[in-house]
């Protein structure tokens, strides 16, 4: 992990990108438990309207 953890600022896009890749690698062989109490059809999504807002938050950082 980069030294962003020591600094008083939010993580940058490239730092977050690196972190998410590291976590993906950590969980490459993750075995889910057998019977999660969850129905089919669950989705994750952020709406286009909120994404537009988040683009303004990102500012100059390229997504």
């Amino acid at each position, binding site marked *: *992990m980069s030294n*962003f*953890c*020591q*600094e*008083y*600022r*939010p*993580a*940058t*896009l490239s730092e*977050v*990108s690196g*972190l*998410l890749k590291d*976590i*993906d690698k*950590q*969980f490459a062989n*993750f075995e*889910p*438990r057998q019977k*999660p109490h*969850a129905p*089919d*059809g*669950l*989705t*994750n*999504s*952020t*709406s286009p*309207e*909120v*994404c*537009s*807002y*988040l*683009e303004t*938050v*990102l500012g100059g*950082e390229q*997504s």
Partner: protein
Amino acid sequence: MDNQGIVTAGQKDYFRNLDIWLKSQSLIDIDVRGLIAEHFHAAFVEAQIHHQKHILELPIDEKCREVYKTVSWHVWYLAYRLHARGEMELALGAISSGLKTLNSFLLHEAPNDACLDEPTLKLIGTMVANELETLADHGIAKNGLYLSFKAARTMKSSREFKVQSIQSSNF
């Protein structure tokens, strides 16, 4: 917008609101900023690891990262860490700043600028704080916090929302 962008912007907006809160409380000395930085980032990493476990454990079709989820869990882990350090005032600030961030996302949802009112936000914040303290049976943690905003978002954005009678519910 890709996942990295959503996650980055979510924690960036949370950080901005937290910074505003710290300044409003005149908590700007270097020790407090160092403590917040350390735990803000550590909590962020915890939230991302939890998210990875979450999507691997549950049958979730991840179209893209859900910002309510990533920020709700970040708020919880940060408040938890600060509380564990005996910094309840900072933990409460982490919660209120997080609620402000989540509510600003809700504000931007179509079709209007409705969002949660102050009494409701205060209730959610109180219940998160209860969970940290010795009133957990009157509290909610990271998933309760997320679901508060998920439910509000679903109602707000549903174009075909109709009031359901209790009898028609599956529960």
